[in-house]
């Protein structure tokens, strides 16, 4: 289990290769990457977090995934600070003997990271800045698990 919270950019491809590399007990690796999407006029995104709590909250979520599914490993990297359109905000990866566990655990991690890890996104546009509102659907998604 590897959880990192950082302002620096990271190389998702290199992380994916390192994560899955050199082991023959997993048959399935799923990765999710969240990117800054510009649907028009986005200058950048600012991601605030709660330094004392963030890693602890993510580790709790990752541990729960490890308990619920048979997983070989879990990786979570989440950035904070100022991110330009196209930049990679975060990634999760799951490795498992079997495909369904890898997919489900990655989906679970994303649902919980979105609503239970202390990050807040602000979109800075040419015409102002707004905190991204949480969606009712994101909270409701937790009920799936």
């Amino acid at each position, binding site marked *: 289990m590897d959880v990192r919270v950082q302002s620096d950019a990271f190389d998702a491809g290199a992380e994916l290769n390192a994560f899955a590399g050199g082991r023959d007990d997993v048959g399935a690796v799923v990765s999710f990457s*969240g990117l800054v999407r510009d649907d028009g006029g986005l200058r950048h995104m600012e*991601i*605030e*977090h*709660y330094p*004392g*709590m963030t890693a*602890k*909250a993510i580790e709790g979520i990752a541990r729960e995934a490890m308990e619920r599914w048979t997983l070989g490993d879990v990786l979570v990297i*989440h950035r904070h600070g100022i991110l330009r359109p196209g930049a990679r*905000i*975060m990634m999760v990866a799951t490795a498992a003997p079997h495909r369904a566990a890898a997919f489900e655990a990655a989906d679970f991690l*994303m649902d919980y*990271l*979105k*609503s*239970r*890890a*202390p*990050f*807040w*996104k*602000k979109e800075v546009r040419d015409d102002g800045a707004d*905190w*991204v*509102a*949480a969606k009712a659907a994101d*909270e409701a998604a937790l009920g799936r698990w």
Partner: protein
Amino acid sequence: MTLDVLYFAWVRERIGLPRERIETDAATVADLVEELRAREDRYAAAFADLAALRVAVDQDLTSFDAPLGAAREVAFFPPMTGG
């Protein structure tokens, strides 16, 4: 008791500071919110709608009726939007 109270995102912006140390006898989070609301308009504005807020006590998410007990740090913030 002495509490570190932290604010994030628009709660921080509305109150105008990221953290402060306060002395309080509040027994629960809700009691603490009442104290803060009574201070100044900017607090009243930030805490106007608790349904729009989340709270963590000593860095664990909890509910507004949670007891403060021997808590050292309470944080208020909007629903998270990570990922």
